[in-house]
């Protein structure tokens, strides 16, 4: 029982099948069993803040740093990255095929008013998408919802391109659902490459979408792992968590990550060169 | 000694006053019969006296214990009075389990309660059905098992709401005998309702008549449904039968109910009167019954008419069953009964 580590992570690590390869090896090497709780990045981090898990494995760099700075995590290990691509229907009504500039591509999509499907769920992908929209310089609409937290009014801002009601679909679902939606609506979407490969080549009903924009350096998607701080939650298994993180960034872990392939394509690129400390 | 004491007891169902009893006492150790037409409130009263329903106002005292109309009836009193309802329902288990149920509630052991249940079933002639499914019995069988289910508890008070309706003639006698015996031997207080006046009269020490929720005079004998003639004064006992003439014309039309006072009717040998006379019917003596010190003579004149005579009067006439006679019906003996309307 004491060898069981509880980890919350984003759905992509589990849904891509990566953990299915890593964890059995981890158990062989270290005897650590990992209880995986997969959810959205936001919820996964929240689990860490509440001390429900021993370690978090997510991809939202800015929020991860914040997490460590606020003392919820002891340190962040950069583990790997994959990249985002913009996909769309083969007919490509916005004519973005071959583009290497994501912001440009989005501008064209907005101009053509072709359907664009957004995750709309505050996930790493969604945050990336919003950053891209901001960098296009197009007018953005923001909507404020106020809630109360600990008695304080808190305002939540949600941002969409302006005047996009007809073509911008914010569906608040996972990556796979977003691709299915885009397929159905013959629309564009920002996706991580892994999920796209899975839905394009590894599915019983492959989506009819093509990669139309890739290789823009801003499209990198970086995964990090953070042990939860025992100073905040004394019960967490910090030692085990550290052991797990170190195994992930060790040559052995990194090799497994780099070697993982889906339908013959590499999905994740090992990143663990530097170990950052707060 | 009085067991139930009611004063100004009122019960309201829906928005209808179903029971409105000025004052009534039921004695301990006695069989009291409740009679009255449909809707008189007998079942409602029994439900209240079995502590199953609240009443609306007034006072009810049971064996010195006053009951409040504002509160649910006290549960512990239910152990002392058991109701056999008018339309009993069986739990869907075996007959013997149904009969043993009350004993189980009283914590009697299984062996003991099976024995007692079998004895009670035997008393109502249903022992052969002990293992049968109780909820599939016929109407009369259900009635009898329901009685067994109550008497097996040997309660202080037994309330039987029409215990013999639907019961066959042979078992009716058995049941009546049983009820009489429970009262005579164990001193059980019995309250009973029925629409069969003759046998109730034989069984009960006291008859209470209810009508429209009130204690009332007993309903008269010799009651007939009649069809008024076009003039509003003549009445026909059957569509083509004998005609009676009233003293005053009727206000209303349509069929109505009348009663003939048996004491006011005169019985004459056929030779003395003429069958064609108004208010005079001819018929055959079909029965002579001695009741207390009077004779009740039944004459079949198309319908059966009852005439009450003193023993001396009867002897003087020298008549017997099978003789043809004339009945003379004075207009004053005809009473038009009020139509029943819901309160």
């Amino acid at each position, binding site marked *: 029982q004491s060898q069981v580590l509880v980890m919350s992570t984003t759905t992509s690590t589990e849904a891509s099948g990566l953990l299915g390869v890593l964890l059995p090896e981890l158990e062989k090497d270290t005897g650590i069993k990992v209880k995986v709780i997969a*959810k*959205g990045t*936001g*919820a996964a*981090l*929240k689990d860490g803040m509440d001390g429900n898990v021993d370690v978090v494995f997510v991809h939202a760099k800015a929020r991860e740093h914040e997490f460590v700075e606020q003392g919820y995590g002891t340190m962040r290990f950069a583990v790997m990255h994959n990249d985002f691509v913009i996909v769309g229907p083969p007919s490509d009504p916005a004519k973005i095929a071959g583009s290497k500039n994501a912001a440009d591509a989005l501008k064209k999509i907005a101009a053509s008013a072709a359907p664009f499907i957004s995750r*709309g*769920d*505050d*996930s790493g992908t969604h945050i990336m998408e919003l950053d891209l929209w901001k960098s296009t310089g197009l007018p953005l609409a923001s*909507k404020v*919802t*106020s*809630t*109360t*937290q*600990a*008695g304080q009014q808190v305002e*939540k801002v949600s941002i969409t391109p302006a005047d996009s*009601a007809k073509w911008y*679909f*914010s*569906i*608040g*679902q996972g990556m796979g*659902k977003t691709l299915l*939606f885009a*397929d*159905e*609506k013959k629309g564009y979407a920002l996706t991580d490459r892994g999920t796209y490969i899975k839905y394009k080549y590894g599915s019983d*009903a492959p989506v009819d979408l093509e990669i139309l924009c890739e290789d823009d350096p801003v499209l990198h998607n970086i995964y990090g792992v953070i042990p939860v701080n025992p100073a905040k939650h004394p019960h967490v298994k910090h030692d085990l968590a550290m052991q797990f993180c170190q195994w992930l960034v060790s040559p052995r872990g990194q090799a497994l990550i780099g070697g993982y392939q889906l339908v013959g394509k590499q999905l994740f690129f090992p990143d663990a060169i530097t170990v950052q400390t707060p | 000694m009085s067991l139930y004491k009611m004063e100004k007891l009122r019960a309201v169902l829906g928005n209808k006053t179903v029971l409105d009893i000025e004052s009534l006492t039921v004695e301990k150790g006695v069989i009291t019969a409740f009679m009255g037409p449909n809707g008189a409130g007998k079942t409602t009263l029994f439900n209240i006296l079995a502590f199953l329903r609240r009443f609306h106002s007034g006072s009810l005292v049971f064996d010195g214990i006053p009951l409040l109309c504002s509160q649910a009836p006290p549960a512990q009193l239910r152990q002392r009075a058991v109701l056999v309802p008018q339309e009993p329902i069986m739990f869907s288990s075996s007959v013997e389990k149904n009969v043993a149920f009350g004993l189980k509630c009283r914590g009697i052991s299984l062996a003991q309660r099976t024995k007692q249940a079998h004895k009670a079933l035997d008393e109502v002639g249903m022992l052969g059905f002990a293992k049968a499914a109780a909820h599939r019995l016929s109407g009369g069988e259900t009635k009898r098992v329901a009685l067994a289910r109550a008497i097996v508890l040997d309660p202080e008070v037994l309330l039987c709401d029409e215990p013999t309706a639907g019961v066959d003639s042979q078992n009716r006698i058995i049941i009546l005998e049983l009820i009489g015996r429970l009262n005579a031997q164990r001193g059980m207080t019995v309250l009973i309702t029925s629409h069969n006046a003759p046998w109730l009269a034989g069984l009960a020490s006291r008859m209470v008549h209810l009508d429209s929720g009130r204690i009332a005079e007993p309903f008269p004998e010799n009651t007939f449904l009649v069809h008024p003639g076009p003039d509003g004064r003549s009445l026909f006992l059957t569509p083509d039968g004998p005609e009676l003439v009233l003293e005053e014309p009727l206000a209303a039309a349509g069929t109505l109910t009348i009663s003939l006072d048996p004491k006011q009717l005169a019985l004459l040998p056929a030779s003395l009167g003429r069958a064609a006379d108004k208010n005079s019917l001819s018929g055959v003596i079909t029965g002579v019954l001695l009741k207390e010190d009077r004779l009740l003579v039944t004459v079949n004149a198309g319908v059966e008419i009852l005439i009450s005579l003193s023993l001396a009067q009867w002897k003087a006439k020298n008549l017997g069953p099978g003789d043809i006679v004339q009945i003379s019906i004075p207009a004053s003996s005809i009473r038009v009964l009020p139509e029943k309307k819901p309160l």
Partner: protein
Amino acid sequence: MGFFWDSIVSALNLLLAADSELLHIVGVSLTVSSSSTLLASLAGIPLGLFLGFVNFWGKRVVITLFQTLLALPTVVVGLFVYAFISRRGIFGPFDLLYTKTAIVIGQTILIIPVVTVLTLAAISRMDRRYKDTALTLGAGPLTTARMVAWEARFGIMAAVAAAFGRVIAEVGISMMLGGNAKGFTRTMPTAMALEYDKGEFVLSIALGLILLALALGVNGFLQFFQGRARQ
């Protein structure tokens, strides 16, 4: 528990702001779930009556199957309907996927067994004499069924209420077939699921409280009429 207090305050804030987005979501929720409850009742009540009245070979098996379908997972219904209405499916040309209609179809399938089984349970406990009385007085099978259903109306209403409760709070099918598209097919429960995914627990619960208030309104309304009918 400051958390729930926050949620209540937030719920009130949301309501007071009468946010147009919120109103739209509430509207979608109500339309979709009342439509599917209505459709499922139109199918399930007669089905339940049929199973209750008509004897046929294999009836027990059919009843067992319907009882089994009480456990119908939303994912199965979702994928099943998806296979028909996605662009590649037979009904693809109707362009139904990711519309309210699609949610209604899926939810209706989901709750037909609920309405059927509970209607059957309600009428199978009815006194057999209701049926016999209607028959001997010359009623045909439909009138007879209607009379018995009328006598069992409170049970059937409970069946419909259970079905409505099931769909108004339903997430899976609404997500899969509706797509949770903001301004189009987002319902209260999918909005809640989204806020939860984002870690916005307070907002999520606030929406849940509004949903319950809504259900309370519907039920209070029905109770009121039920009370009047009972008199």
